[in-house]
């Protein structure tokens, strides 16, 4: 990129975005010295509309996904400025040597502007011209950072911090992320689906990564036995001024009671919502019979609007190499791939075909945990009463 500055740009709108206490993205953009993008961004503020148009199909050798083409409708300012999507390491843990190297490669070949991280869970590198793409891709790949997750394919998978730094992780989210990324790497790198698909792993029902709304396939850690109580620690919380009765009052099913000395639990009433555990992390912990709930259909966008994903398998144990879940996901992908309309997410296909048909086709049993309540109409399709 040209780093020379012939004449300082006048950017009154962008300057206004630099004012204030919160660090500004415009300041970062200006630091890169990526003059054409600064000019184009200012132009958008003047015109109140974007100047980017379809970039068409832009790829690097051997990989179908991973590059988002961007071409501007103001080629006099900036012609092409594509985005690279890189698979981020599990749980977003980095060593500085890698980050430094990525920044160095990106600065040398492209704008230098980085986005940590894209909302799909990838490293997003912004602003590369078409001719620089192949050498940059080769350098990044050599460093160990692979491409994928754009277009109608499996997006880069994502996981919460999990057992690396959280006491509530009921599943090994980092290992799942690594193992499933390797297993489904073909689907991440080559677009072949009707639309995008996302898989996210969250260690507990707090769902810090938003898997249930932000992923088509959500794997959320949970447990089946009673949560564990350290009565001494509960008393310590009470002594320190925590209103333990108020914590109990917020329990959605009234499963816990506090008599001033002992916290009693009715395990059969507990729905594992995490509220009391969040309030008293030193005293309460998830039980030992740990696994995950597998949910399907979540998304914020698509043909039919936002869905919160719904339960397919209420509880499954997850131990390496996770064959059962991998096979189930592969079966769901195949089912969707064969039937999905253009831009139809997997949840929408299930809605169009019916949940019963989906369960039959992928070979899963119907269980009451899959519904809030049974149907209220007597219109059965295809012998569902049998």
């Amino acid at each position, binding site marked *: 990129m040209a780093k020379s500055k012939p004449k300082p740009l006048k950017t009154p*709108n962008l300057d*206004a*975005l630099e004012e204030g*206490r*919160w*660090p*500004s*993205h415009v300041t*970062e*953009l200006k630091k*890169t010295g990526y003059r054409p993008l600064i000019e184009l*961004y200012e132009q*958008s*503020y003047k015109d109140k509309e*974007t100047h*980017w148009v379809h*970039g068409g199909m832009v790829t690097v050798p051997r990989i179908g996904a991973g590059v988002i083409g*961007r071409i501007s409708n103001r080629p006099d300012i900036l012609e092409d*400025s594509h985005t690279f999507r890189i698979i*981020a390491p*599990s749980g977003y*843990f*980095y060593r*500085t040597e890698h*980050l430094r190297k990525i*920044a160095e490669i990106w600065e040398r070949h492209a704008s230098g502007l*980085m986005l*940590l*991280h894209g*909302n799909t*869970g990838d490293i997003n590198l*912004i602003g590369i011209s078409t001719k620089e793409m192949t050498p940059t891709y080769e350098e990044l790949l050599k460093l*160990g*950072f*692979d491409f994928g997750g754009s277009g109608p394919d499996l997006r880069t998978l994502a996981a919460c911090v999990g*057992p*690396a*730094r959280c*006491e509530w*992780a009921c599943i090994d989210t*980092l290992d799942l992320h690594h193992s499933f990324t*390797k*297993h489904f790497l*073909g689907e991440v790198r080559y677009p072949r689906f009707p639309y995008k698909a996302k898989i996210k792993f969250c260690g507990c029902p*707090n*769902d*810090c990564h938003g898997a249930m*709304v*932000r992923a088509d396939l959500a794997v*959320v850690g949970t447990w089946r036995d009673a949560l564990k109580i350290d009565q001494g620690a509960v008393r310590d919380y009470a002594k320190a001024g925590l209103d333990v009765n108020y914590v109990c009052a917020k329990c*959605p099913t009234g499963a816990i009671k506090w008599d001033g000395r002992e916290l009693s639990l009715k395990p059969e009433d507990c729905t594992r919502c*995490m*509220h009391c555990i969040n*309030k008293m*992390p030193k005293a309460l912990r998830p039980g030992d019979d740990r696994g995950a709930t597998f949910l399907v259909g979540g998304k*914020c966008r698509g043909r039919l*609007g*936002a869905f919160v994903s719904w339960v397919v398998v209420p509880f499954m144990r997850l131990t390496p*190499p996770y064959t059962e879940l991998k096979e189930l996901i592969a079966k769901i992908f195949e089912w969707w791939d064969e039937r999905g309309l253009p*831009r139809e997410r997997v949840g929408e296909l299930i809605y169009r075909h019916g949940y019963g048909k989906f369960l039959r086709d992928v070979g899963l049993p119907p269980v009451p945990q899959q519904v809030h309540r049974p149907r209220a109409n007597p219109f059965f399709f295809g012998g569902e009463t049998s």
Partner: protein
Amino acid sequence: MAKEERPWGMWGLLPYGEMLPPVIKRNYGKWKYHEVLRPGVLRHVSEAGEGIYTVRVGMPKFIAPETVRKVCDLADKYCDGYLRFTSRHSLEFLVADKKNVDPLIADIKKVLRFPVGGTGNAMQSIVQCTGWMHCQTPATDAPGIAKALYEEFYDYFFRTDLPAKLKMGVVSCLNMCGSTHACDIGIIGVHRTVPRVIDEEVAKCEIPVLIRACPTYAIKPKPPKSIEIDPERCMYCGICYIVCPGAPLTDPERDGVSIWVGGKTSNTRGGPMLSRLAVPYIPNNPPRWPEVVEKVKLIVDAWIEGARKDERVGEWIERISWERFFEITGLPFTAAHIDDFTFSIPTWRSTTQFRW
């Protein structure tokens, strides 16, 4: 760590074990509890009694390589060269030695000038998409609006006394690349003009795919090689423009912003909730969108005033009722608030229970 299971001849991703600091490797899966020491600083303690301090830092969504190097310098100096990020564009320094926490925070303030906070019952970092900066479909500029909100709510990033955590998300169009529906406050850019059909561009697209992509069947073929859009059926979702460049729908005069409230993804208490419409349309007013900021402030302040402890925005509204929410905030309830799309019926009230 995990072995290559399907050899593609290339990397996939580096083993996560190489990315974890030694104290985390030693205590992987053996954490016992955590506490929030002060805004932005967490301490996790393992079964073995070892502790790790997390310093959470808010940062801009886009960063320059120069900043990346400064961040790395600090991680090398205080964290043995390890660091992590969160799914909300935040940065986390993982400090093994307590002695390093204060000097690290002092350096973050001095060198990076980034805020330390966003833990517990505070405003968390704002999720954003790329907007006008680098996208073809936006109706507004999410990073710009997020910056304006950050300025208004700057102090909320360090608060500990909000009723519950406060998550905000800003996206520039209905593509929703930023979890807006799972946020307490969601800002969504909206188009309001039927796509303009450019015949010669449409002729280059796959017309059957384009027609089938429309969720409301508003697109009809127009022989020999173009399409016609029924304005009555169009809901400005923009899918046709994503499928084919021949149907652009941006309109600088009519594009704008909508505000949504009450989303939550956690399973705590009542479970996940999708955010609901509060304000259907505010015209774009760059560079600082004062009308949007004002409305968001109104809603957040009403929540802080009225919510009980531990009530997220959506839980507060569901308790006091939506009629009271509109009354308290003074936001007008309009026909746009009543759902008329696919899953509308469960949102229409079918009881005689009201709050007056």
